[in-house]
């Protein structure tokens, strides 16, 4: 229904960081099959809480694939807290904009990233190594 710009198409054609990850620090999945978009994001986080590796899998339209792809590029090297501050709006902007319809329905990549980060944080807490609860270094 809508025309994607060249940057979106470039990410659709050559999505960065597609795939699954063995032994991730966190995994997040958002979306729902009845809306037609499901994104799964895997992150690897180092001791300084930086995202060192990221992989995604997406069932969805061109916008869903492209936003997933660019969000992985944007997140690598960021801390998990920086990643939590990223918004779907920023993702769309970094792609040079999305068709209006896609802004609503397929722009979930930041949410998927957040979900992965939250999973990581939850695991950390479970391990008793939640960083701000310092003490046992």
């Amino acid at each position, binding site marked *: *229904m*809508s025309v*994607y710009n060249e940057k979106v*198409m470039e990410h*659709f*054609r050559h*999505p960065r960081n*597609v*795939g*699954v990850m063995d032994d991730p620090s966190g995994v997040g*999945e958002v979306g729902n*099959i*009845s*809306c*037609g*978009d*499901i*994104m*799964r994001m895997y992150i690897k986080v180092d001791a300084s809480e930086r995202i060192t590796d990221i992989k995604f*899998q*997406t*069932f*969805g*339209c*061109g*916008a*869903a*694939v492209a936003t997933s792809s660019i969000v992985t590029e944007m997140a690598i090297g960021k801390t998990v807290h920086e990643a939590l501050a990223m918004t779907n709006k920023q993702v769309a902007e970094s792609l040079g904009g999305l068709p209006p*319809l*896609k802004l609503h*329905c*397929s722009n979930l990549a930041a949410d998927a990233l957040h979900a992965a980060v939250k999973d990581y944080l939850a695991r950390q807490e479970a391990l008793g190594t939640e960083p701000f609860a310092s003490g046992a270094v």
Partner: protein
Amino acid sequence: MKKVYLDHAATTPVHPEVIAAMLPYLHDNFGNPSSVHSFGRDARKAVDEARDKVAKAIGADPREVFFTSGGTESDNIAIQGVALARKQDGRHIVTSKIEHHAVLDTCHYLASQGYEVTYLPVDEKGLVSVDEFQAALRPDTILATIMHANNEMGAIQPIKEMAAIAHARKITFHTDAVQTVGSIPVNVKELGVDMLSLSAHKFYGPKGIGVLYIKKGTRIKPLYHGGSQERKYRPGTENHVGIVGLAKALELATEGLNARQVQIIALRDKLIAGLLALPEVELNGHPTQRLPGNVNISVRYVEGESLILSLDMQGIAVSSGSACTSGSLEPSHVLLAMGLTHEQAHGSLRLTLGIDNTAEDVDYVLSVMPGIVERLRQMSPLYHKR
């Protein structure tokens, strides 16, 4: 890059002979058909001749042929026009769940205006049941509108049987034949319908021009008001260039129809066989009672728009019933009505063949398809979950 157009159900290129027929009316023979002088008379003659051709092609009387601006307008005039004219007789309308939005949304609108609408279900092959149709009719039913063939999955409906039942009960019967005219034989007398919609751009004619057939004696009111063109059922200066184009396109489509059907069905079945050879790909719609050019499949684990874009990158133009291409969150209402899951519906692909397609085109599609499907499946979280 090689380009293969497989979206003839969406629209078709205007046939070169149709363009040639239209050109003289753009600049030299440009008069307003309502003008008394020679420019007007020449234009009127063109419109009259076109009306005769259309009438002949669909088995109607020329006075039963009304030119409109396309399929959507024909559907709206038919449905709203009869609803207005017959509201004293009743307020009940019967249609199906798989109609085009031009019919469905018009029925929704009438439902908001105090009419009652029954939306008939379809079976898993996409067919409306004649028995269910009959059972849905009520004493206050004034109008039934069931499409001749579905635009998404091509199932051809038993119009003749339903029209006969409607007639016996004095219910006006309309069919949206936008997808069938030019593809399979369409004769209003044989179908026994009171009204029929068609649109030129689906059979190698221009966009923005269509016909509503209205059988003599049908009670209907116009929706627009103005000049006395089209006997006041559709006022406004006639688009005589479009009218000439529509008539020429219909003439061409009718002439070679049988041979073309055979040729296109052969390509279709070759394409279906090739696609179904891929793992976890299913055919949607009736295997034989379907439009010659229609192929509709569901490809598991992948989403339709991604398929379209991937094929487009290879020069192949197709469409899908994915929500992403419909601008809504819901995928195709047609596929859901047939009982497909959301995943199947989201992963649907429509490939519609036309007179310009060849066996090489089909081979080309079948050669790129496996790689595309595999790549998207590798990307899909559903594929890995399975």
